[in-house]
């Protein structure tokens, strides 16, 4: 296990190095000088040259990459072309919002997806099964941004139950400690803060969560169905075990590995979906930061956001592989 972990970590580092190179050279390939755009108000050529030098854009590209990498390892991603604020600070400020959204969505996805997969999986071809399958198929076919806007139209615009966007009410002062509203509100025992945070979180989290749930439903149903056809289930039934004991003790544990894998694989779509959903709901996370940065051609910001998102993706994939081994001890990683 230790050796495996070490090797996977080395692999992760190598792939992140490759990702950083791709990102760096990609954003340097862009036609059009970002400084030209940033300094549109500055007419003096010497002033533009001074800014170029200040950002290190006058040096060879490879040299720029090496210093970018060296700085990135120290957590320094340079300064934004626009706000001139350190990019790393921006990322750190936005990271908790994305983590909160991703965790909440995963929670929604797992709870909805497991139940809607488990129950019909046990009663195949019942009306419940058929209707869940139809809903599940629709679920994986609705792009998250469309679902998000439909939910927003119903719950925020028509019913006016939930806010249209944002993460928290500016009129309600509350100091964040961990950056996660839900955690901080619970720690401070502020139920009013918790309620407000949940109201803002509800729509984006449910939108993304349903997307994950739709995939999970299909996989859970299939694997549970297969498990209930196995000999050990028949044996358990012959021994006279209750149906719920059969499901919880025998069918579910055997259905877990594929479910874990799919949840892990879906995390990439979840991150990608989060990028888009954050823009739909003006959720101030990494995804919105990235989209804004692309729109403003703020390359240090683009590079750092993509790198951070890819890093999260890599770490989660590694975690899933390890979890995979825990739920299925037969799989020996080596």
């Amino acid at each position, binding site marked *: 296990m230790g050796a495996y972990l070490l090797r996977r970590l080395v692999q992760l580092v190598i*792939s992140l190095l490759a990702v950083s190179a791709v990102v760096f050279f*990609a954003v340097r390939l862009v036609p059009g000088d970002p400084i030209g755009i940033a300094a549109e108000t500055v007419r003096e050529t010497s002033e533009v040259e001074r800014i170029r030098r200040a950002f290190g854009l006058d040096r060879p590209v490879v040299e720029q990459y090496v210093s970018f990498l060296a700085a990135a390892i120290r957590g320094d991603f340079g300064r934004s072309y626009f706000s001139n604020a350190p990019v790393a600070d921006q990322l750190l400020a936005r990271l908790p919002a994305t983590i909160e959204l991703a965790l909440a969505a995963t929670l929604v996805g797992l709870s909805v997806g497991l139940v809607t997969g488990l129950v019909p999986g046990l009663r195949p071809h019942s009306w419940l099964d058929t209707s869940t399958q139809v809903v599940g*198929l629709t679920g994986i*076919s609705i792009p998250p941004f469309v679902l998000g806007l*439909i939910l927003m139209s119903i719950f925020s615009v028509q019913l006016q139950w939930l806010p249209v966007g944002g993460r928290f009410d500016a009129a309600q002062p509350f100091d964040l400690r961990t950056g996660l509203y839900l955690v901080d509100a619970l720690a401070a025992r502020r139920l009013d803060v918790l309620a407000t945070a949940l109201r803002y979180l509800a729509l984006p989290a449910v939108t993304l969560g349903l997307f994950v749930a739709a995939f999970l439903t299909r996989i859970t149903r299939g694997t549970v169905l297969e498990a209930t056809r196995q000999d050990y289930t028949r044996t358990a039934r012959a021994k006279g075990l209750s149906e719920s004991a059969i499901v919880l003790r025998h069918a579910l544990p055997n259905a877990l590995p594929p479910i874990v894998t799919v949840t892990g694989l879906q995390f990439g779509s979840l991150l*990608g979906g989060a*990028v888009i959903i954050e823009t739909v709901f003006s959720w101030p996370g990494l995804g919105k930061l990235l989209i804004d940065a692309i729109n403003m051609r703020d390359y240090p910001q683009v590079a750092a956001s993509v790198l951070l998102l*890819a890093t999260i993706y890599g770490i989660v994939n590694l975690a899933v592989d390890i979890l995979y081994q825990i739920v299925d001890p037969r799989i020996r990683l080596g």
Partner: protein
Amino acid sequence: MALTAIGAPWLAPYDPVKQRVAERLARPSVGHPFGTDDFGRDVLSRLIVGARPTLLTAALSVLIACLIGSSVGTIAGYFGGRIESVSMMFIDIMLSFPLVLLALLIVAVLGAGLVNLILAVGISQIPLFARLARSLALTLRSREYVVAGLSLGAGQLRVLRRHVVPNMLGPIGVQATTTMALAIVTTSSLSFLGFGIQPPAPDWGVMVFEARRFLFDRPDILLYPAIAIVVTVISLNVLTDSLLRLLDPTARGMLA
């Protein structure tokens, strides 16, 4: 859907981009079954004509991904060795990015626009085909008829063309169908974000983006392009499922 896209210019009752401000935000009526938007443009016409860029970008991007991905994967899997390790290394690097993120990065580099959108989505989907083609070619390489063909003195290219590639077409076709669904989602998402097809062109993603403006007055305008996208994607997913069952009843769930 495909027929609608082809017949769009004849089917659409109004010019999709012509503005009639006098008739703006009209409720659905006999003249305009789905009403008009804030520029007085007929929503039904925009929907019908919008099928073209939406389906075309998705189809072209899948074509790019399929051609490049399958060739790279086949060559890698069939020949093995250094070609395989180098090309798969590139594929693995691409897989280190979530798909949408990779497409976004490419759009960020190339800039917004129709052609760049097709390229971005196409490139980001190459790994899907490359991995599948490689594993298929790996299995096929050791099949008796391939070995027999080679030992009879047939050239590598001939064996590849006559015995390997035909046997790969089925699974790759299924992958292309399911990827097409994914491509519609990705391209319309990017168009929605403003990185793809540019307004006022009638594209479903663009239409969803524009519908945001009148969520308060005319929430139904959002529904039409939304339903169009969802119905198309569902059809493709159902098609994938039945193709899978047709090809191999045990292969269900193999494709992600």
